[in-house]
């Protein structure tokens, strides 16, 4: 990493955070497995047996990762992400998250149209008639592609119900 790019999160911090997250996941899996019997009966291992040990192995391996993080990455100044990189990722991720929430509520077609048009206008710097036309064209193409050709319906929202497209 060159020094003139400002580091936002260090590799070491992220290694530790991820190790803790997988450790927590392991604990969650073990707790979930404990809702069932984890031993053996005459029918072989009981339902909780496999997940229980899977969870235990995740916990053990996470501890290993944490140990390695302290051994290998603690001293290094390596960055996980720079401020510039984080800004670029967020510029992509936040609209994506908004798209997911929007599609959940409004259906995938409306979500797609709003998302594409929005990104083109506010991030791509296109003029709105062009952006609306492109977004509309792509959404329309997807509609024909999924609903007519492949016959796999996508998630619909209130707008489709309003127009009676179902």
């Amino acid at each position, binding site marked *: 990493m060159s020094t003139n790019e400002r580091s936002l999160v260090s590799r070491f911090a992220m290694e530790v955070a991820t190790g803790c997250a997988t450790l927590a996941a392991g604990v969650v899996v073990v707790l979930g497995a404990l809702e069932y019997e984890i031993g053996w009966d005459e029918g072989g291992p009981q339902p909780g047996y496999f997940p229980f040990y899977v969870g235990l192995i995740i916990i053990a391996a996470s501890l290993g990762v944490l140990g390695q993080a302290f051994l290998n990455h603690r001293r290094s100044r390596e960055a996980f992400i720079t401020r510039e990189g984080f800004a670029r990722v967020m510029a*992509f991720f936040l609209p994506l998250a908004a798209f997911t929430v929007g599609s959940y509520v409004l259906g995938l077609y409306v979500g797609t149209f709003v998302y594409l048009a929005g990104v083109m206008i506010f991030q791509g710097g296109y003029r709105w008639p062009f952006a609306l036309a492109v977004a509309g064209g792509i959404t329309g193409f997807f509609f024909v592609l999924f609903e007519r050709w492949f016959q796999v319906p996508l998630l619909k929202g209130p707008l489709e119900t309003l127009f009676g497209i179902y």
Partner: protein
Amino acid sequence: MENIASLMHGFGVALTMHHVLLMMLGVLLGILVGVLPGLGAPNGVTLLMPLTFSMDPISAIILLTSMYWGALFGGSTTSILFNIPGEPSSVATTFDGHPMAKQGRATEALTYAFLSAGFGALVGVVLITVLSSWVAKFALRFSSPEFFAVYFLAFASFIGLGGSSPFKTVISIMLGFAFTAVGMDTVSGSLRLTYGIDELIRGISFLVAVIGLFGIGELLLTMEEGLRFDGVKARVSPRKVFATLLTLPRYWLTLLRSAAIGCWMGITPGGPTAASFMSYGLAKRFARRRDGFGKGREEGVIAPETADHAAGSSAILPMLALGIPGSATAAVMMGGLMIWGLTPGPMLFIEQKDFVWGLIASMYLGNVVAVVLVLATVPLFAAILRVPFAIIGPVILVICVSGAYTVAGASFDLWLVLIFGVVGYVFKKLDYPIAPMVLAMVLGDKAEDAFRQSAIMSGGDLSIFWSNGLVATIMALGVLLLVWPLLSLIVQRLRPSRDVGATTA
């Protein structure tokens, strides 16, 4: 010779107008996903999967495998022209391919790439033709303990031979197992790891996971690096292609060595990416002149491409014959096989002769079709990459999210794909391998079933995994691979101390 007869029968199955058209469609779609960053072979095949549920299995697998070939080829196009690997497995192609293109030798580089890739793929398919029924016959002797041992070996080889920290590989595999355990347990019918969330009863689909991990994760990475397309203009003239073709036999040694590496890495779950890097490294080491690598050497394109495609196609062999896929994409296809109601493994060769040999025959044809189509469409796909990323990035994303929804028609999967996307991004940045997780999600239930059935056979005695020569050998190999990182660490520790001893003495 029995295999040749079966293969001819297979050509009879594959060579219909319908199938050849599907092949061309698959290859074109494949090149498209290979060219677009963020869409690669594993999640391209995943996105297409829900659309094949209503097709007959032979047409479906031909479409999907053709897409796989196309994606492998498409990845090399962008590597050479734009210095952007469309696929992780074509990273090594950028080292010499892009410099060649910059020197005005784009046509040569592309021709070398595609032809050597085609050669690698054909070697892989020939290997499958020769070995598959033998491997399947051998595997017919397997029962539950042997199958569990083979699964164990497959995962152990990820841990032992993978480049990243063994702990991270273990976490990746075990998280995959945990995800498959979610939902209805196939043996007892109990609802495991659902934590009272109704949506989790269906389980977590590996297809949704692949779209998130590979698709969205890859896109986030691409965005962080700040994508720039500085392409080299390419017009492919048939005469130059032909002239390049004539010089290809000069590199026969590189071709053969790389194909061998590729086949080995494809059959063992090393995968195409590892194969292409290894092949590039070996080509450099064995080259008579070592200079010029990284600045546009022909061998630097031929070696990784041949190995990449040899690995890609031979990864189908263990998938068909043993039910263990050799690459992430093969894992997705195997999941598809199970969804279509086929059980991958040795019985497939007895019960579904049409399917198996139709598929193998289609691999010969598909690769020839792919070489021709990819050469013909270079300018077209290069033009697609000139569409501004502010448009194409979001469109890729919409395809990923919509594709995740089509898997089960469940809106809960929209959240899952987002979460898997973030996990994929973080895991990739921290060198957690992702392919083992996908493999674990596809094989998880089968591995658990094999373990439980073995336990039932032996009445709970784990020594069944050492009970005969066959299972004991496979288990021993697995254990050896498992402790391999530890062994190499000890050897590394011992060696410098010996050196120190030698200098002081």
